[in-house]
């Protein structure tokens, strides 16, 4: 899953970036509202972490523009201002949730999972298609009697597929969700990860559609 982090404090941004990578997110970072506005138009990200207090264009106005364009990407506000008015305004403008600095990273990650889950219309914490189940909190995958913990990237791959079971994702789409801007992607990286997941959970867990891409079975 690819996240866009919009945060002006370089130190906080770097720390969040590391933590998100640890949690199997691909992360892109921007430092100001104008750039954020531009990047968000590309729609490459599945979740947005938005700091309200930004230099140049204010975070709330970035959010407003985003929702005015009809973009429904989940947005989590990060704010150091504990003024409730800002948060109320942010939520009213279409933010999905918020955390207040100083926040607990585990809480932020849990809220991110919850927001993504709600958006994909699932109530349960786990993702699944009836064949394989995936717990985003622990990165544990289960299939029949099999229980394995996936690596960050393997998890991200299976997670991307399980968010829309029965839908084919191309190599480019998968790469998009798995890697940030400044990450070097080898051409065989996706194959390598799919091999890893199949080895752990069984070859038929991910189906290959020749010339099109990969998918998991639609929920039964």
């Amino acid at each position: 899953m690819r996240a866009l982090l919009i945060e002006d404090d370089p130190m906080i941004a770097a720390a969040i970036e590391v933590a998100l990578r640890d949690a199997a997110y691909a992360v892109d970072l921007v430092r100001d509202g104008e750039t954020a506005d531009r990047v968000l138009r590309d729609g490459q990200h599945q979740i947005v972490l938005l700091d309200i207090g930004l230099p140049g264009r204010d975070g709330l106005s970035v959010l407003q523009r985003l929702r005015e364009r009809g973009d429904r990407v989940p947005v989590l506000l990060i704010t150091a201002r504990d003024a409730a008015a800002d948060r109320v305004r942010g939520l009213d403008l279409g933010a999905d949730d918020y955390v207040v600095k100083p926040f607990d990273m585990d809480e932020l990650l849990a809220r991110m999972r919850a927001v993504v889950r709600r958006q994909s219309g699932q109530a349960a914490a786990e993702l699944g298609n009836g064949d394989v189940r995936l717990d985003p909190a622990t990165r544990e995958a289960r299939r029949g009697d099999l229980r394995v913990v996936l690596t960050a990237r393997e998890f991200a791959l299976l997670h991307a597929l399980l968010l829309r079971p029965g839908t084919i994702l191309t190599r480019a789409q998968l790469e998009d969700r798995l890697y940030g801007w400044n990450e070097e992607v080898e051409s065989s990286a996706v194959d390598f990860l799919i091999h890893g997941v199949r080895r752990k959970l069984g070859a038929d867990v991910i189906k290959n559609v020749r010339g099109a891409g990969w998918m998991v079975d639609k929920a039964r």
Partner: protein
Amino acid sequence: MTRSFQRRLVLHLGVAVVGLGLLAAAAQFVLAWRELRESQDDMLRQVAALALRHPGHEMSAPGRGGLDDHDSRIHLAMLPIDPAPAWLGSAMTPGLRTLDTRAGRMRVLVQRQGPYTAVVAQATDARDELAWNGALRALLPSLLLVPLLIGLIGRGVRREFEPVVRAARRLEALETVPEPSLELRDMPAEIQPFVDAIEGLLGRTRELMRQQQRFVADAAHELRSPLTALALQARNLRHAKSLDEARLRLMPLEQGIERARKLSEQLLDLARIESADAPRESVDLVALGRELLAMHFPVAEQSGIDLGMEAGDVPSVLSSARLLRTILGNAIDNALKYTPAGGEVTLRIVALGDGARCEIIDSGPGVEPSERAEAFKPFHRLAGQEIGGTGLGLAIAREAARRIGAQISLHDRADRRKGLVVRVDLPGVRAIGVNES
């Protein structure tokens, strides 16, 4: 005891009223006394005249007359019908006089008419008592008036001071400096300027408090950012999967700690500018500049910045070395932070009139003219900067400059190259005993 204006006013007026009242009373007493004396003499004359008109009338009979009345104690003897009183002696010449007799001091009137001589006498102590009582009665109204006047003065003065006392109570009851003006109305005109001054002071205090509150809020906000970073960095370190990764993640944590340290230090600096005393001393600016350059040189060298100095023949100034070090040090700090590698930072010191001008010239991105005023506000950071400063450097420099009466301002470079000039103009007070030679 405090000097109560009200009490003194009452005292002054009271003393005047009592003094004048007593004076008037004394005059009244003397006049009344004289008047009564004369009317008493008149009465003796009337008695004598009456007796002489009806000699032999029972009024004149000794020991029977209503005249021998107890209070006024008037004695009448009609010679030769009555025997001459023994105390009269030879003083038989007509007229009014006071005699000392065996029976006491007497006021005696001797009057002749035909064969008769009327002797009318009245004991002086009786006369005195009557006159005294009469005079006192005349005195009574003015004596009663004095306390009444004092009471009225006291009430009047109190009433005039009431708005002041009320205002004082209201001020005393205030917990904080209220938002709108106090609206102290109905004040005596003499006190109005004082009231206006207090209102002005409260207004300034209010503004200062607002600034302080904003600063504290900003400071709390700014303290939270490094703490947030530290918490995240520590967590990242805990989640490191190898020793190498841990080492890699330790670095930002250390930087985070350094940032928090720097911030708390600068907050303390800012507090110290106000609280600590800054004695005026003779400061050799060029020597101070050299000291500052030496201090910042390692950072400049590390960042690949050419740090140097241009100094003319600059006299010593009378100022605070500590605060000057704070001002110039923060400006150099900033210049080094914003100047890219390969750039240059120059400290320029020249004489300016009686004072001196210090300029810190860098080859950084500069500051837009519209942003220059904002740049001095605490925690202000320039938009689009990657540099993680505290945003306090220039605010500290400006506070310190204000304390020593120096002017600090931002300018474009004179040579039109990209960069910023931080100019510090020191007032023209030269150190005593130091001259240009």
